[in-house]
């Protein structure tokens, strides 16, 4: 005979609190199994959690690592293992992009959006889009800049696509690898409260590159001032996403090493955008027609 207590409706909060206390308890839900625990985590932790996150991050990182361990249980040579990296819906990808383009000060991108579900879809396709955006915009901008000149013959410059692809994919994968290795090394020396897995770092870098896609398209405008303003603006946006992500991870370390790390991250990011601007986009020329200088032997030279 069931008691009255057993028949009482279990409040939503109770279940959520139980789950927060014991994250690897089995949960049965009608919806996708991995969605609801995380959402409950999120809604519980949003209000006052951000300060706690900084101070007692151990719990959070422990929990996220436990949750991560639950998911990727297939051996790495099966197809299902890689499917766990693409376990995102359309709205999740859009949310992550929104979080990378409009960074809110104090909100950590990884904690807020990735939440132990790093995906490879975003980084891969954002990099692919960026490669083609830079190549196509560079080609278009050069075409418009040199349009009126009689000696100009349009070429599609297809070589640059492979160069752009190599550069951007190398940046999006090798720099996270180096950063992850560096953070692991520092972790062994200084007990950091926040640590990221390699895929989370790849995710942050991939999504932070999204801002460069509209920037590359706007770089078609052949004005130097406009281009450099765009460089600064996009660097601020995507750099701030990276800084806010990695500052908690190196904050407890030696002050100079922490600043050097964050400084290197921003510097590499700036180098990428300035390098792309310099290589793929010719310098816009001045508007007045080029002066004609008569040379010694009577032929005229047109100077740039």
């Amino acid at each position, binding site marked *: 005979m069931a008691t009255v207590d057993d028949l009482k409706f279990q409040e939503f909060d109770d279940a959520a609190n139980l789950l927060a206390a014991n994250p690897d308890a089995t949960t049965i839900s009608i919806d996708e199994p991995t969605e609801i625990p995380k959402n409950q985590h999120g809604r519980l932790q949003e209000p006052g959690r951000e300060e706690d996150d900084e101070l007692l991050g151990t719990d959070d990182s422990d929990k996220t690592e436990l949750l991560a361990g639950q998911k990727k249980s297939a051996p790495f040579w099966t*197809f299902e293992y*890689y*499917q766990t*990296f*693409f376990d*995102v*819906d*359309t*709205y999740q*990808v859009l949310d992550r992009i929104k979080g990378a383009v409009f960074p809110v000060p104090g909100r950590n991108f990884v904690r807020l959006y990735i939440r132990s579900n790093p995906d490879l*879809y975003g980084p891969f*396709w954002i990099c*692919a*889009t960026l490669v*083609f955006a830079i190549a*196509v915009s560079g*080609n278009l901008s050069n075409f418009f800049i040199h349009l009126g000149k009689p000696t100009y*013959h*349009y*070429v*599609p*410059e*297809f*070589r*640059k696509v492979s160069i752009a692809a190599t550069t951007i994919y190398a940046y999006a994968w090798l720099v996270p690898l180096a950063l992850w290795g560096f953070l692991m090394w520092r972790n062994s020396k200084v007990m950091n409260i926040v640590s990221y897995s390699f895929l989370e770092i790849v995710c942050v870098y991939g999504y932070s590159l999204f801002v460069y896609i509209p920037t590359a398209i706007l770089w078609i405008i052949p004005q130097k001032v406009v281009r450099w303003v765009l460089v600064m603006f996009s660097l601020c946006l995507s750099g701030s996403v990276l800084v806010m992500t990695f500052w908690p991870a190196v904050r407890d370390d030696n002050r100079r090493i922490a600043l050097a790390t964050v400084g290197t991250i921003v510097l590499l990011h700036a180098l990428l955008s300035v390098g792309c601007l310099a290589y793929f986009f010719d310098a816009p020329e001045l508007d007045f027609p080029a002066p004609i200088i008569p040379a010694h032997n009577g032929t005229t030279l047109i100077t740039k």
Partner: protein
Amino acid sequence: FAGLADVSISEDIPVEGEITVPVGSRSPDEDYSTLDEPVRDTIMRDLKAVGKKFVHVMYPKKSSALLRDWDLWGPLVLCVSLALMLQGGSADSKEDGGPQFAEVFVIIWFGAVVITLNSKLLGGTISFFQSLCVLGYCVLPLTVAMLVCRLVLLAGSGTVSFIVRLIVVIAMFGWSTLASTAFLADSQPPNRKALVVYPIFLFYFVISWMILTFTPQ
């Protein structure tokens, strides 16, 4: 011969012989073994299958013929002809010319493989080669656009010809994307459709860009 009139077969005489049914002569064995048919029949059967799929691409209805009997002959023919037509442009500057034959080939096949892997990783139920088949066949409108562009460029390469080429390429790009989406979208989980359609859009956009920027010497 009067004695033969009352000949009757008694029951204890075994009746022997072969009962052959005319239909049985085409046993299942012979259906699978096409070795004996003339070569013309073999080739025509494959050609008809390829042709039927081309028609399906040009008038995309939700039929499963394209998906069920996949073949890669059509995509190969389209890819080779597109890569051949993209040659012969701006060859004086070897560094910054258009895509080489191998580059077009690699982009189309590698791009199709990556998109197929992407849709399978996102949980799609279509098989690998079926998806390659659909993506390859849907390059047909863009190959037609390339042909039209080359013909227009023979007439001249001014602004008018550029606008004509732009309109043709945009129309064919839209047609390709819609055709392949019509075939592939059903096999995806419903809340990830956009994630699967976007790479297809990017793939055909890159091919359209290669076609549009083709400039002859």
